[in-house]
């Protein structure tokens, strides 16, 4: 906690000249101090994950001047509308587009940012902390009726001279009425980095708008990764998300989805691989607040030797949310002796006229399938990889932009290569 206080104070020194921001961050830090970091013994949501691992006492403050070496900065990629975000701050972008505006906290009107943030309830200490130390908020707005012709990419990377640091970023995304856009998040970082990356995304999708959202996380193998995404769906809006997680040694994803407009539809799938020394935790909340919405959730993970995967899904169906169609599924493939999977597919249903199903499976590879492939001359590790690939492919969303699908497939292949010795 001492280290976090120092980080907060360092942050204040740099952003504190703006009175409104100063007050806001003080308020949020107070909230953080009151809530503290979640306790795994007292809070079931943290039963399997010790968040203290991501906040060691020697975590240091990363100042605005500690930017990654610009000479080695990655190049902008013309396949995307590319936005580079280094250490939580926008450093480069390759487009100027009618109907799409990109800004950061110090340039935007603070009023509108604060107003947007106030719509989301803070759930735990980590969330309060993210806001307390978020000086440089990234905003991305897609105006009503704008159809964006290629994916917008948010390319996150980090780097500095410090031993280990907290890299905090906060992104606000608004998709206007009838707009359609695809967003890709890429998260990478130095292999040896011991940083803790703490990302927050606040996404609002207006009436009849559509957002496709792909998140690919492939940060260094000693990095800790925390992701809070809060998505609000309005009338007849559509949200399709795919989350691929394979980097970092400790990761916690918290995805909260609020279906607050009638007729909205959300599909969110994930594929993940957890190998030795990795701890990967997906928490999702889907809140059906209004009638006739659809949510579909399919999380598929492969956990191998020494890895641990956690899934905790909660679907709430509020009293008046009749006509809801909600499904939630977590499927796990276990490889290796020391692997552990903890899964909790949960539902709380307060409306009677709904269709809900949820489930979970955990199991190893079917020996008959392996045998069949072996008997056809496929080497064992190759056979395992083929079966693992087949297992994860299930979660791929067909309707995504072809470029994004290609990226997903590439990343999956890289992830699966680990199983071939």
């Amino acid at each position, binding site marked *: 906690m001492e280290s976090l206080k120092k980080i907060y104070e360092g942050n204040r020194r740099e952003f504190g000249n703006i009175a409104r921001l100063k007050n806001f961050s003080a308020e949020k830090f107070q909230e953080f101090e009151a809530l503290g970091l979640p306790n795994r013994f007292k809070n079931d949501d943290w039963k399997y994950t010790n968040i203290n691992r991501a906040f060691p006492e020697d975590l240091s403050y990363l100042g605005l001047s500690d930017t990654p070496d610009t000479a080695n900065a990655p190049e902008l990629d013309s396949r995307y509308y590319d936005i580079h975000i280094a250490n939580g701050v926008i450093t480069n972008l390759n487009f100027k587009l009618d109907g799409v505006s990109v800004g950061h906290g110090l340039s935007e009107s603070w009023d509108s940012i604060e107003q947007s943030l106030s719509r989301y309830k803070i759930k735990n200490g980590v969330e309060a902390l993210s806001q307390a130390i978020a000086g440089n908020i990234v905003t991305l707005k897609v105006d009503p009726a704008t159809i964006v012709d290629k994916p917008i990419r948010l390319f996150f990377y980090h780097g500095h001279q410090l031993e280990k640091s907290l890299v905090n970023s906060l992104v606000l995304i608004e998709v206007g009425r009838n707009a359609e856009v695809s967003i890709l998040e890429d998260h990478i970082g130095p292999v040896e980095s011991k940083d803790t990356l703490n990302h927050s995304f606040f996404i609002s999708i207006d009436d009849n708008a559509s957002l496709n959202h792909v998140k690919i996380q492939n940060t260094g193998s000693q990095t800790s990764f925390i992701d809070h995404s809060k998505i609000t769906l309005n009338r007849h809006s559509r949200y399709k998300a795919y989350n691929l997680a394979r980097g970092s040694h400790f990761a916690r994803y918290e995805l909260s989805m609020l279906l607050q407009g009638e007729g909205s539809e959300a599909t969110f799938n994930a594929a993940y691989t957890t190998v030795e020394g990795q701890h990967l935790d997906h928490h999702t909340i889907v809140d059906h607040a209004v009638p006739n919405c659809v949510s579909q959730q399919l999380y598929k993970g492969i956990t191998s030797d020494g890895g641990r995967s956690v899934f905790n899904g909660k679907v709430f169906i509020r009293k008046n949310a009749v006509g809801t169609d909600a499904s939630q599924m977590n499927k796990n493939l276990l490889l290796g002796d020391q692997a552990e999977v*903890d*899964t909790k597919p949960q539902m709380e249903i*307060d409306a*009677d006229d709904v269709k*809900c199903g949820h489930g979970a*499976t955990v199991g*190893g590879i079917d020996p008959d399938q392996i045998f069949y492939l072996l008997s056809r001359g496929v080497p064992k590790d190759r056979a395992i990889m083929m079966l693992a690939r087949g297992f994860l492919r299930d979660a791929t969303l067909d309707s995504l932009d072809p470029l994004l699908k290609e990226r997903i497939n590439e990343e999956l292949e890289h992830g699966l290569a680990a199983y071939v010795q």
Partner: protein
Amino acid sequence: MEIEMMTESSEVLKRRDYKYGFVTDVETEDFPEGLSEDIINHLSDIKNEPDFIREYRLKAFRYWQTLEEPEWAQLNYPKIDFQALRYYSAPKQNTDGPKSMDEVDPEILETFKRLGIPLGEQARLAGVAVDAVFDSVSLGTSHQEELEELGIIFCSFSEAVEKHPELVKKYLGKVVPYKDNFYAALNAAVFSDGSFCYIPKNVKCPLDLSTYFRINSAGTGQFERTLVIADEGASVSYLEGCTAPQRDENQLHAAVVELIAMERASIKYSTVQNWYAGNENGEGGIYNFVTKRGLCAGNHSHISWTQVEAGSAITWKYPSCILKGDYSRGEFYSVALTNDHMQADTGTKMIHIGKHTNSKIISKGISADHSVNAYRGQVKILPSADHARNYSQCDSMLVGKNCSADTYPFIEIQNKTATVEHEATTSKLNADQLFYLESRGLDEEEAIGLLLNGFCKDVFKELPLEFSVEAVKLLEMKLEGSVG
């Protein structure tokens, strides 16, 4: 229109007059309210208990004092004042207890007759051996002689302490240690009586053994303890039923049941719980906080829990299996029906330790009116449990707009050879289904009964015949009165 139909059907589930809500007028010997070491010593004195039991109670009591009441369950009720409860109430009788059924207070026998519980001659005719527990004390056990011939011990817990202290000492608290949880500690401190059963090696118990519990006195908690041991190759089917009079205060029932199955032994434990659930405004009713657990100690052993939970204001109950022996099997079949303002938080734990262990969970929750019905379960497969399997199915049915159904499965897998599958669905008592059945001449009550029985049949078929009849009757009784 649909809204209208749904209200109608939920009306059907409105609490009917609780059939077992009468009070029996017998003189009782009661303790003052409250709990202290003195009370516990006094209890031990009255029961003339050996030191090991007295010490067990005191240790548990001291530990209990360090605990706080658990709050994690999805339950909502005012804090219980444990010092305002009475911890012992027994029908006044000769100090030695009844020697035979003839000596039991006729009022009490009449009570059991009204409940439809066979004791004595009736039991013999019904082919069930019964141990009846009235408030805190076991009233007498039928069929003892026949069972003795086979070496089966089936008696009240007090009698077992007196006659078979070595068995009690060996197994008491082995499956549910007093440190297990708040209510288990409380029970260990103050348990008054209960049933004890031991089936010797390779004996298949020829009768269903049965315990019937009834809370009669006001302001009394009931804390019975049941211990069932099936030795190598033995098997037994055990039935438990519960009722209580209708009172407008809440009463506490905190029982502990321990089952131990040795190699190739099999225990089937069935419960129909119909404690008084309170009135339609949620006043009164039993708080049913029960710890039930079975240990599959030997290889190829088998424990099966079946429960029909239809009563109690609050139920907090997770009959569990520890699958220690290789190839052992655990099963949990449950129907929990809640209506009015009832709250049920129930489920199971299946802990897989041995190799090739297998568990199955079938849970059916029906919630109506303003009730809350939660399934909470844990499946844990430890690294040692190679080739373990679990299949869970948790279905909920909602009747009406003001009830809720929650599912909280915890699945923790530490072995790659495990195969675990969890499925859950929700359904409703559907207006279209009702119309279809009604258009074929069934009235609404029959139609709902048919649908509910259909929803629950995977569980009902696991009940011994006489209990399944009772369970169906119980559901129907909950539905009674829809006409007129």
